């Protein structure tokens, strides 16, 4: 194989090494282009990862459904009627709509987003208190800093346990004080703390300062009966959330005698929409990054072609001598194209290494900081391979221009004495 021919490569490196400064200047364009490409891609990936980190633990294919007041009269009912979900609704929905994967009913103390005073040792906290099923954790993962989340056992035995938010902890405890196993008092009932969670700063549906207790305990402690406040629902991954959303609403409207055209009686929030918007945004960003990067790369490779053209012109005599000594056009062409590839690939690697360095520094500085929507800025293996294949492809195509110029040199013209 000629590609392993040591002489071919020493020929190429001898030519490139002959004028190191010019070779370096030539490479600069591609080095910078590669840096730009990798930084752009890395940045776009980092943003995508950043959003993913923000949404981590929140099922993307999920929705929330809650009851409001009717806005249209229907079947003899006046408008403005307050709808109250019942726990049986959860069972009915789960039975009738098989696309529902997890359904977590919830009830809260006081009115919606109401605040209840939580007491401990003379300290108080105005918190939202939720009665939850443990499976809510499958839809909105709680990041626990200590202890555990509610479990099935708490539910079946209606244990008087609670999981509190970090904010609640700060209000009720001294700094560094142990909270697990301690009791707090809500509406005269004592609850034992089993876990402390850190709220997600970026998606905050439950509020900063919240207390979770098992749904069954809630029913008994506060006498809520079969009432249900709202539902967190995740649907199967191959199903579109809006489809299930309208199915749920149709079913509930029918059950509670709500006018099918009444848009206000049942509230809902489609989480997948947010995800789709974000992923569309980062997708476009990645596309634009790649496009800009590739164009920059093209400009860099064209610069190499230009320099090689000049080089060929300068080397007219040398090429003429080689031709007179028996170099076939193919050999000459191959050498110029290989020079183009060698410069491009080498420059590409240098630029790549520098850019990866920059990304590593950026990663280091960002770290786990969740205020910045960037996380783990890196380019993927396919992106890396794609860029390189493209770069080599471009360098071959572009290298053909000076190569064809070189083989048009006739030895007789090149060797003509001035």
């Amino acid at each position, binding site marked *: 194989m000629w590609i392993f021919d040591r*002489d071919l490569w020493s020929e190429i490196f*001898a030519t490139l090494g*002959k004028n190191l400064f010019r070779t370096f200047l030539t490479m600069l364009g591609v080095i910078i282009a590669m840096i730009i490409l990798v930084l752009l891609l890395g940045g776009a990936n980092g943003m995508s990862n950043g959003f993913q980190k923000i949404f981590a633990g929140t099922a993307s294919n999920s929705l929330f459904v809650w009851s409001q007041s009717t806005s249209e009269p229907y079947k003899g009912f006046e408008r403005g009627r307050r709808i109250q979900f019942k726990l049986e609704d959860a069972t009915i929905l789960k039975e009738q709509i098989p696309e529902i994967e997890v359904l977590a009913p919830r009830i809260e103390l006081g009115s919606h987003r109401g605040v209840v005073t939580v007491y401990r040792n003379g300290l108080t906290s105005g918190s939202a208190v939720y009665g939850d099923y443990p499976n809510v954790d499958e839809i909105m993962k709680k990041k626990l800093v200590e202890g555990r989340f509610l479990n099935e056992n708490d539910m079946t035995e209606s244990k008087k346990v609670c999981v509190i938010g970090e904010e609640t902890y700060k209000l009720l405890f001294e700094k560094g004080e142990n909270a697990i196993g301690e009791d707090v008092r809500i509406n005269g009932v004592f609850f034992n703390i089993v876990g402390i969670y850190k709220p997600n700063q970026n998606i905050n549906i439950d509020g900063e300062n919240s207390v979770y207790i098992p749904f069954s305990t809630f029913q008994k402690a506060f006498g809520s009966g079969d009432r249900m406040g709202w539902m967190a629902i995740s649907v199967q991954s191959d199903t579109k959330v809006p489809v299930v959303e309208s199915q749920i609403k149709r079913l509930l409207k029918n059950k509670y005698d709500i006018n099918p055209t009444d848009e206000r009686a049942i509230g809902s929030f489609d989480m997948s929409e947010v995800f789709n918007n974000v992923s569309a945004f980062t997708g476009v960003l990645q596309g634009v990054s790649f496009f800009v990067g590739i164009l920059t790369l093209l400009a860099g490779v064209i610069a190499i072609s230009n320099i090689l053209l000049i080089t060929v012109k300068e080397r007219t005599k040398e090429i003429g*001598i080689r031709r*007179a*000594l*028996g170099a*076939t056009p193919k050999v000459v062409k191959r050498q110029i194209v290989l020079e183009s590839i060698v410069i491009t690939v080498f420059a590409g690697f240098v630029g790549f290494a520098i850019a990866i360095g920059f990304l590593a520094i950026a990663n280091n500085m960002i770290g786990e900081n969740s205020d910045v929507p960037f996380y783990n800025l890196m380019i993927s293996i396919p992106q890396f391979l794609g860029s390189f294949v493209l770069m080599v492809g471009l360098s071959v195509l572009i290298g053909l221009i000076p190569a064809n110029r070189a083989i048009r040199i006739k030895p007789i013209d090149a*060797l003509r004495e001035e």
Partner: protein
Amino acid sequence: MIQIKDLHKSYKMGKNSLHVLKGINFNVEEGELVAIMGSSGSGKSTLLNILGMLDSSDSGEYILDNVPIKDLNETKAARYRNKFLGFVFQSFNLINYKSAAENVALPLYYQKVPRKERQEKALKYLEQVGLKEWAGHLPSELSGGQKQRVAIARALAAEPKVLLADEPTGALDSKTSYEVMDLIQKINDAGNTILIVTHEPDIADMCKRIVHLKDGVIIEDKKIEQVRAEQYV
């Protein structure tokens, strides 16, 4: 070794056609040392270019070592040049970033001779021209005479049938010229066929035969008593 019959060549210069070679006939036997003389514009360089397959003729026959040279494409011409011919130029035409040995080895590289053998041969021919110690030097570190001797070694390295020298002493002072001619004579003594284009009579007298060109035709073709260059060195 070389048979040429009724060779014509003209160049188009705009509307005018310049008839440079107007029917050249001559033969060269193996082992000859021929000087091709003529003033500038006589067609001697064109003849050499055609002999060197750097240019093609319009009509006529050219047979080199019983191989008819015709219908050459670039690749074929390059192969024939590499196989049959060694070139020596007035301005040496060494590749300036390659050492003397690398320059000598270059035609062998295009013959796909293995690396080691190439290096050995290059040293052998450098020794023959008396420059073995200079093998690792770049052309810029050599004198004009040394450069031309490296070029001669390079021309010899491919073991060609014919050595073509275009004004080999044109860029050298007389003393160096005689040294180079001495070398050429010795190479000829060893049985190599050599053609030299020159316009210097003293150089021509050091050959065994002088072919005189004028206005595209041979006006004189005589065998002469060779003047040995040795005595001037």
